[in-house]
């Protein structure tokens, strides 16, 4: 019998169940009252950046070709009997999968036949079927996917920025890899990565919405056999604090220049990462959110449009703040942003501005508990970051002006880069 632990949030009046399953899998169950659908994610803590690693069984660290986690995701849908989409189709569920920098997730959402769909999910991800032939065939499809992203100016401007900010960290490389790197992927490499990262000890099952937790657990009990812990060591990326280059420019078929400006900061993990993320979001909004004086000035000068926005991204070995948009003069935005940064550092953050932005952010986190999809994804993300899903909303409610002021001081002009995609001459 699995031990159930209940986690509660007084603030949003909700709770969920955490189970450490005897198979080694962590199971997070979040029934949501009044909802009709369920969203289930079976995910591994393995993404595009896990390029170099070793297990207890490996004598040395091994480095695998870029794009292999994503390649593996594509291949997992195939089995001897056909593809997993065909199995889900019989239940009516919508199934999908995605690979990000640090995780690969297989998921479905449904309103009916939840149990059958969960059985399919827990079975096909446990049953790899790679042959020389089917691995070879996938090169064409993934090659097309890579080319499609090559045409996408928003995607390019973002990855070019990561290339400017990071010298060594593989976060700068496209999640799908390159046409050249995926050519080196074969059946044996896929099995090696599978055996390493698809151990249940490295995985999580998160379910949110309309379902019975005991039914879900019964299915897990029936289908999951214990996995040993491969004791994965992930190589650290030897990433210096300095950026690679301050500017990168590419020409593409676009109507107006696109830009992405990033500030590289020191990476952190666990609850510190949650705290740093919230502080950084607040600084972003104070610097150039829609209610800031700089936003107004740039907007009135026609230098930014409503598409302008900011984000924080972080994970194992990387942490940065990113501002993206379109502009006739991206370098002028870059200069203005850095000047505003210095002004805020000198003059300090007005208390009232801080309080307003904090409320805005808090409201946004509360909203995320409206959606089965966002809750399921939030559970997975929190688990792989080593925190609880409620930590974000709790930290957002408690963050102070002093915390945010300290964070502001870590935005460093010397660790700021700009990526520009400009129209073809």
């Amino acid at each position, binding site marked *: 019998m699995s031990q159930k632990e209940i986690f509660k949030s007084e603030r949003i009046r909700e709770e969920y169940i955490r189970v450490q399953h005897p198979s080694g899998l962590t199971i997070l169950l979040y029934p949501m009252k009044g909802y009709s659908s369920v969203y289930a994610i079976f995910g591994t803590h393995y993404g595009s950046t896990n390029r170099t690693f070793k297990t207890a069984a490996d004598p040395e660290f091994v480095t695998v070709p870029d794009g292999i986690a994503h390649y593996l995701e594509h291949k997992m849908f195939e089995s001897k009997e056909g593809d997993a989409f065909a199995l889900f*189709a019989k*239940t009516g*569920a919508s199934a999908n999968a995605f690979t990000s920098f640090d995780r690969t997730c297989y998921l479905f959402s449904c*309103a009916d036949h939840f149990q059958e769909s969960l059985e399919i999910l827990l079975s096909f991800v446990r049953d790899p079927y790679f042959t020389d032939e089917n691995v070879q065939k996938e090169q064409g499809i993934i090659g*097309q996917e890579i080319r499609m992203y090559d045409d996408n100016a928003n995607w390019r401007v973002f990855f070019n920025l990561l290339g400017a900010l990071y010298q060594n960290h593989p976060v700068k490389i496209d999640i799908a890899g390159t046409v050249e790197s995926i050519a080196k992927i074969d059946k044996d490499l896929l099995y090696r990565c599978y055996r390493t990262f698809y151990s249940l000890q490295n995985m999580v099952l998160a379910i949110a919405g309309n379902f019975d937790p005991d039914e879900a657990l019964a299915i897990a009990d029936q289908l999951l056999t214990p996995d040993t812990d491969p004791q994965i060591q992930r190589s650290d990326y030897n990433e210096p604090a300095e950026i690679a280059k301050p500017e990168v420019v590419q020409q593409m078929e676009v109507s107006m220049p696109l830009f992405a400006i990033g500030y590289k900061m020191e990476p952190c993990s666990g609850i510190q990462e949650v705290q740093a993320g919230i502080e950084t979001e607040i600084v972003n909004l104070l610097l150039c959110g829609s209610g800031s004086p700089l936003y107004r000035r740039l907007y009135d000068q026609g230098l930014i449009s409503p598409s302008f926005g900011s984000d924080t991204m972080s994970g194992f070995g990387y942490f940065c703040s990113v501002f993206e948009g379109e502009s006739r003069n991206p370098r002028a935005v870059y200069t203005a942003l850095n000047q505003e940064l210095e002004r805020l550092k000198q003059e300090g953050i007005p208390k009232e501005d801080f309080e307003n932005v904090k409320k805005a952010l808090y409201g946004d986190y509360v*909203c995320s508990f409206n959606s089965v999809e966002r809750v399921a994804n939030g559970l997975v993300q929190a688990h792989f970051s080593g925190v609880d899903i409620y930590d974000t909303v709790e930290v957002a409610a408690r963050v102070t002006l002093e915390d945010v002021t300290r964070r502001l001081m870590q935005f460093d002009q010397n660790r700021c880069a700009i990526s520009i995609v400009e129209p073809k001459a």
Partner: protein
Amino acid sequence: MTAYPLNRTKISDSIYFSSVVDARYKTNRISINLFIPLQKETVSANALIPFVLRKGCADYPDFTQLNQKLYSLYGSYLDTDVRKSGDNQVIGLSITGIDNAYTLEGENIIKEMTDILFAILLRPCLPDGLFSEKELNLERQMLIDLIESEINEKRSYAIRRALETMCAGDPYGIDKYGTVEQVKSISQKELTEAYRSLIRSASIEILFVGCGNPEIALQETKKAFADMPHLPAAGITSQAFSGHGPVKEKTEKLQVSQSKLVMGFSTGVHAADPDINAMRLMTALYGGTPLSRLFQHVREKLSLCYYCAARFDRAKGILLVDSGVEKQNIQKAKEEILRQLAVIQDGAFTDQEFEQAVLSMVDNLKSVNDSLGGTEAWYLQQICYGTKVTPEEEAQNLRQITRDDVIAAAQKVRLDTIYVLTGEEE
């Protein structure tokens, strides 16, 4: 069967307030949707209105001050947009925010959200009776940039160009923003007149969806429109698209490494026609799911396209297939897409494929009410088509459809337009 949850109140002949209250959410969303016929002469001036309105109102004349206020309302999200719904242009204003119950200090934010939304629509800043020149110039340029930037997203750009080719001469062929030339020529006077005409003559649908009390928003709506003269509106219905003559073909060149192929079909079935569900099911079977004919055959088996999907526009009865394809495979993909349609027309699909398409649609329908956006879109559609069906009832209706209904629907589908966007070199 539960009762139809939409509560509808008439404010005047062409203004309605509707609400759906559902305890599952933690938020409320109020939207104002103004429907006006798509016309070349007015489309751009109408499109510019929400851009200018979003910049401030008599209560919050300063844009920064307005956005600060929204921050303080827990990041309530004030959005304006321009849509196309069949033969209508729809100007939308909406505000979404957390419910009073989840605020840190127990504030009544529904009232303030509603106030701001109506102030934005009905009490704009009009110094000297006109929208200011400064705002006009700024927002006119923003709109021009937006139109020009549509080329950045090749997939949606190709779809838009295909529809323009297909529907030349039909209101649906008019872009929701109009053209850059039209936007450039809009004056302060023209914009202000377009605004006054919009408020007086549009069909206005106001929707409240959320866990809170809609009464506050309803009272505010009544007050807001109490002494506003309103002209009879054109209504919100659309004509089905009818294709004539030979297949239209158009090829355009841009620097792209992956080509786009879009095929437009007329069906003659639209809005609340009796066989509308058969046509929607046909679309799902043809190219609406990962198990569809297009996905399984054109993408998976033949590796001809990275994506290949079919969608059905209910308001106009138009079926579109769009795909991303290597240049050398365009002809093959075209043939295969048509061959798969013929397969359905001939009834050469399996019972299993049929049942899977039904299951997928039924499942999607049952999930509609799990999001505010899904719920709002669903009930706005019911209003547009004059129907009163819940997603659960629609799921039951779908189950009544037979293979023969789907075959009959497929036989109504006629190829109208082939649009190709491809690379310049070679």
